[in-house]
Each structure stands twice: as structure tokens, then as C-alpha cells.
């Protein structure tokens, strides 16, 4: 996480064609968005159809149609199948879509704002803060089986506090002092919080399994309650990030140029990072620390859609939704009927994919 700091100012990555000759690439935007939407819908269908218990495809489709207002279909799905489909898979799919979209959209925004390809949604201490919050909730017993929302609440508060601490530490004489200071402060905050978390774990070795289970990410336990928490945040994040994506491109040309173009760099950066951090904190609160999604999905999107953030941000949200939903299908089927932590899947797929992307980018340059 500390390496990217050295390259504080990589080459400007804005897609020049986007401004010089707007009509041609913009023509591609709609088809690409349609492709992303299609991928998300297809992934959702796979998520509803595939799991450790084999449900007949016809019955599942029938039961889904039956739920549509006005439609009545005899589907033949038994009670257990109905429970599995609507109470277990359905919220899991929705949450996979939402968390994937939040992490990937935030990742794209972070990378754009910091002009750093290695930036990910956990850069400003979100992961360490959420991890410490969750660890505290678990070791104090607040988040036992009776815990309800104690764990997500603690993780969320931890994440938000960590980002606030990072932002506060990066101020110089009360004023923002640029992206590099922010990244450095994030690294310091993350290291400190990780140390506290390790100490707590040492003192509470009996909680190791619960804490690590959370750290590796889990969509396995979620239900409608988590969905209700996440959806409002998803809507706000999607609207803000998609509307602000153009400004990320403007920021990329440099602060002074941005100012002459009518964008105030400091407040714009702060607002985008605040929304992205809130989105990440929410995602982490309900699903634990799922790695690599916020990193590889935006990079993959840039391969097919270029580097203009007006396309990268929304497409990252769509493809991120699809990717995480499919990763969750793998998490519950690879070792069925046992679950694999979803973080293991995303890292296992993500690390090689990331290398491939890096190599192909080097080839281009």
C-alpha cells in the first residue's frame, strides 16, 4: 500500500480524444453501458440459479415470474426451494451486486482523483478502521450470535473514523495539502490501526476464527436487513460519482488548469473522496474486507473503454456488480456444501488478472 506514494505524479492519464473529438468515443458509451447492464443481469441470474442445492431451472424461473405483480405461474418449487431462492440467494445476489458496484465505483474514483493506478478503496484507512471496529465488536462479545447489527455498525463507524483521521492528519495549518499527503496519512493511520487490531487479537485468541472470517469477506450471512442498509447508499453513490466523473477528468490536467476550467480542485476532490469513502465503508460494513475488486474492475474497464472517467466510473460499477456476484457463486459452490470466504475468490482471480492487465498496459505504452 505504501509503494504508490513514490510515484506521486504519474503521467496524466486523461483520454485526450474525449475532449478533442467527443463524438466518436461517446458513440461507444451507450453500447458499453448496455453491455455492463447485461453482464450484471446475467450474473444475477446465474447467482439465482446456481448454488450448492440444485434447484430446477424451470421451477426457479417460474417462481421468479410468479413473484411479478399480476403474474401467476405454477412453478412446482417446494418450500425449502422457495426459502433458498427468496431468503438466501436473492438477498445475497442483490448485495453482491451492490457491494461490487460500490467497491468498483469507489476504486475508479480513488484512482482518478489520486491519479494513481494502484489506489484502491481501502487506501485511506477504511479497511484498517473497519477491521479494528469489527475486531472490537467481536472480542468484546457485542457481535456474538445475538449481535444483530453490532458488527456492521462497529465496522462502519471504524471505517468512517479512520478516514476522518486520515483527512485530519493530512491537513497542513488547517488546509488540505494535496493527494500525496492524504495517501501518506492513510498509510500511517492504517498501520497504527492494524497494530492495535493485532494486539487485540493476541489478547483474544479465542476470537481468531470469527475475526478472520470477517476479514476475508462474507456475503454468506446477509439477508434483507443488510440490503435495506446498502441500497440507499448505492443510489446516492451512483448518482454522485457518475455526475462527478467528468470533473475527475478535469482534475487530471492539474489543479491550476482545472481552476481555469471552473473546477475548484480542493473541494471537488474532498467531495468525491467523501462519497467514495462512505460507499466503501458501507460495503465493508455488510460484507467484510473483500479485496481486489476495487482495483481490478476499473483497470479491466479501462482496457475496453479507454481512460475517460465518464465511462470508467459507471462501467466499473456495472462490471463490478457482475464480477462480485459471480465470485460469490464460486464462493458457495467450489467447496459445497461448505462456504469459501469470498475474499479468497476475488484475490485468487484478481491477482493474476491484475498482472495481466499491467502487462498488457506496458505492451501498449
Amino acid at each position, binding site marked *: 500500500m505504501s509503494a504508490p506514494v513514490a510515484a506521486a505524479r504519474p503521467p496524466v492519464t486523461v483520454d485526450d480524444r474525449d475532449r478533442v473529438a467527443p463524438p466518436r468515443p461517446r458513440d461507444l458509451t451507450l453500447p458499453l453501458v448496455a453491455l455492463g447492464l447485461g453482464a450484471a443481469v446475467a450474473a444475477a441470474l446465474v447467482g439465482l440459479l446456481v*448454488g*450448492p*442445492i440444485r434447484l430446477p431451472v424451470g421451477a426457479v424461473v417460474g417462481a421468479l415470474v410468479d413473484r411479478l405483480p399480476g403474474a401467476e405461474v405454477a412453478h412446482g418449487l417446494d*418450500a*425449502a426451494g422457495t*426459502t*433458498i431462492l427468496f*431468503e*438466501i*440467494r436473492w*438477498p*445475497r445476489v442483490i448485495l453482491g451486486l451492490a457491494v461490487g458496484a460500490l467497491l468498483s465505483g469507489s476504486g475508479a474514483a480513488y484512482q482518478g482523483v489520486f491519479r494513481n493506478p494502484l489506489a484502491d478503496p481501502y487506501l485511506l484507512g477504511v479497511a484498517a478502521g473497519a477491521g479494528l471496529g469489527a475486531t472490537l465488536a467481536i472480542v468484546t462479545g457485542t457481535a*456474538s*450470535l*445475538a*449481535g*444483530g447489527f453490532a458488527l456492521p455498525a462497529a465496522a462502519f463507524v471504524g471505517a468512517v473514523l479512520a478516514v476522518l483521521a486520515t483527512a485530519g492528519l493530512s491537513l497542513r495549518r488547517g488546509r488540505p495539502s494535496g493527494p500525496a499527503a492524504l495517501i501518506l496519512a492513510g498509510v500511517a493511520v492504517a498501520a497504527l490501526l492494524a497494530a492495535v487490531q493485532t*494486539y487485540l487479537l*493476541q*489478547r483474544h*485468541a*479465542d476470537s481468531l*476464527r*470469527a475475526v478472520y*472470517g470477517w476479514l476475508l469477506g*462474507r456475503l*454468506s*450471512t*446477509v*439477508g*434483507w436487513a443488510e440490503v435495506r442498509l446498502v441500497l440507499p447508499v448505492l443510489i446516492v453513490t451512483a448518482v454522485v460519482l457518475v455526475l462527478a466523473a467528468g470533473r475527475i477528468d478535469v482534475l487530471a490536467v492539474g489543479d491550476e488548469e482545472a481552476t481555469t476550467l471552473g473546477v475548484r480542485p480542493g473541494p471537488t476532490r474532498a467531495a468525491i473522496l467523501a462519497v467514495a469513502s462512505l460507499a466503501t465503508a458501507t460495503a465493508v460494513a455488510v460484507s467484510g474486507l473483500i479485496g481486489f475488486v476495487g482495483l481490478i474492475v476499473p483497470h479491466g474497464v479501462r482496457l475496453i473503454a479507454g481512460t475517460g472517467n465518464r465511462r470508467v466510473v459507471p462501467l466499473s460499477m456495472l462490471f463490478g456488480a457482475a464480477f462480485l456476484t459471480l465470485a460469490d457463486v464460486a464462493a*458457495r459452490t467450489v*467447496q*459445497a*456444501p*461448505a*462456504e469459501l*470466504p469470498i475474499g479468497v475468490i476475488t484475490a485468487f482471480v484478481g491477482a493474476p488478472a491484475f498482472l495481466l492487465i499491467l502487462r498488457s498496459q506496458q505492451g501498449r505504452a
Partner: protein
Amino acid sequence: MRSIRSRLVAAAPALALAALLAACGGDATTPEPAPPDADAAAAAPEQDPDAEPASGFPLELEVAGRTLALAARPERIVSLSPSTTEGLFAVGAGPQVVAVDEYSDFPAEAPTTDLSGFTPNVEAIVGYDPDLVIVSYDPGDLVASLETAGVPVLVLDAAVDLDGALAQLGTLGTVTGNVATAQDVVRSLEDRIEAAVASVPPLDVPATYVHVLDDALFTATSATFIGSVYGRFGLENAADAADPDGEAFGYPQLSAEYLVDADPDLVFLPGGDADAFAALPGLGGLRAVASDRVVELAPDVASRWGPRVVDFVERVAATVTTLPEPAATTP
């Protein structure tokens, strides 16, 4: 923080030395030299090795491939495992115990300290001047370090079944010089287990169960100690399919939809809350929930292999007895 760090720094050379000495040591079958502070006692004529070591001390005992040599009846015992702490007090060795680890919270009179059995500090342990240390596993060459410091160590690995748990009580009685009490205790526990098992009528169709550790549905299979207890009653573990080859060491994370499909007769929740379990996505419709057979267990009783495990056995028996006949009523 500083004091912990300086303690660690101070302990480092001792640990390194201990590791070195351990590496140079002979194989485990040769009788170990008596600890230096017990020279005189060790020089006493040896007892007949074939006789029941009931007669007393000095004592040499093979436990799990290691030889434990005790010059005299230990009077300053340190226990670093909650299970052995409970066992020590059950066999009447309580007065001989000077310190127990931070998780040893039963019985109430146990001298709980901040000693850790997971990240033990040799200096802190030696500070209690023990003449016997009992551990359930050996993190970071703890045993070698303590023996280098002249402290005899008894390693009692986690029991794999009820018989193993009872045998450990016998061992604790022997090494603490409470043989008769230990024998009485073990006999009465055996009687209670037998009575509990006998109280359950044999089931034509084996009833199924899951032992759920947390809301992420981590479960214990029948390969675990706790699973062996359920096995005594002929119960079938629905989570076994999730860890067929033991890769998860008997503690797989179960898929919720598999649990819905398996729909076990009984659900056991160590440290859990039946209402919270029923509120987990999709689980409210389980037969066990509908028929009120989600059993909350005291967390410590189900995770320790001390004498209280028999309370747990009786609890299971009482629950199984409530199952309707025939047990499996799948439509």
C-alpha cells in the same frame, strides 16, 4: 505497550537458548534428568515401574510419548488450559493450584491470572515458581523453554472423545497425588454418561443435528470432540458433508441453503441465541426452529473437555428424548 515489549526483548535470548537446548536434547523416550532443584528427591530409589503409580512420588509417567518426571507431589501447579483447570479442581487438586490462565474462569475459586495459554510468556509463568505446569498445546517451544528452566511440564492435548476426556482426569489425579479422588470422580462421571445414553431410546432412523458455532454458520462435524459426544446418542451430523476429508479440521463453514435443504432435527448453539439463529436469512423455517429444538448451550461447556462435559452429555440426552417417534418426519 512498553513493558510488554521489554518483557519480550528480555525473553528472546532465553527462548533462543531454550530452542537450541531442545534441538540438542535426546529423544523423548529416555527418562529426562530430574530438574536441578529436585536433585535430592530424584536420587531416591525408584518405585516399581509396573505398579499403579498410585503409591506416590517420585513419579515417572508416560503421557502422549513424553515422560513426565516429578520428584514430589506438586504443590505449586500452573494450568494454562481451562479444561485442565476444571479437571484439576474436580479431582481435588484445587489447593495445589497457584495460577491458571486468563480463560480459566471455572470453578470460581480458580486463581485466574493474566497468563496466556496461546501466547505464553515463559518468564511470567516461571515467576509463579511452579513445580508443575500443565498445558494443552505447545506454542513457540513453550515446553522446551520451561524444562530448560527446570519446570516439569505435562502436555494434555485436546481430548478427541469422552473416553479421552475421562482418561485425562485420571492422569491429573495421578500427577497431583489425588488418585483415589480422581478414580471416584471418573467412575461417577462414567455412570452419569451411561445413564444419559441409556435414557435415550434407540432411534430407528437416526436423528440429524448441526452444532453451529456462530452466525456465519461455522459448524463442528462428527470428527470433532464435541461431535463424538453426539455420536454417543447415534445422532447424525448434517455438516459432515461440508468437510468430508477433514481439510477444515472438522470446523467447516456451512452453506445456508444446504442447511435449509438438510433441515436437521436438532440445532445446538454453544454460546448462541435461538431467536437470533431463527432470524438468520432462510433459517426461520427449519423443522428444528418450528419444533423448538434449537438448543442453547453454555459456550464453555461445549468447547472444553473438562468434567463439565458430562453436564453437556445430559443436556443432549434430555433434548434427544423429546424427539417424536419416529425421529425423521420428512414429508
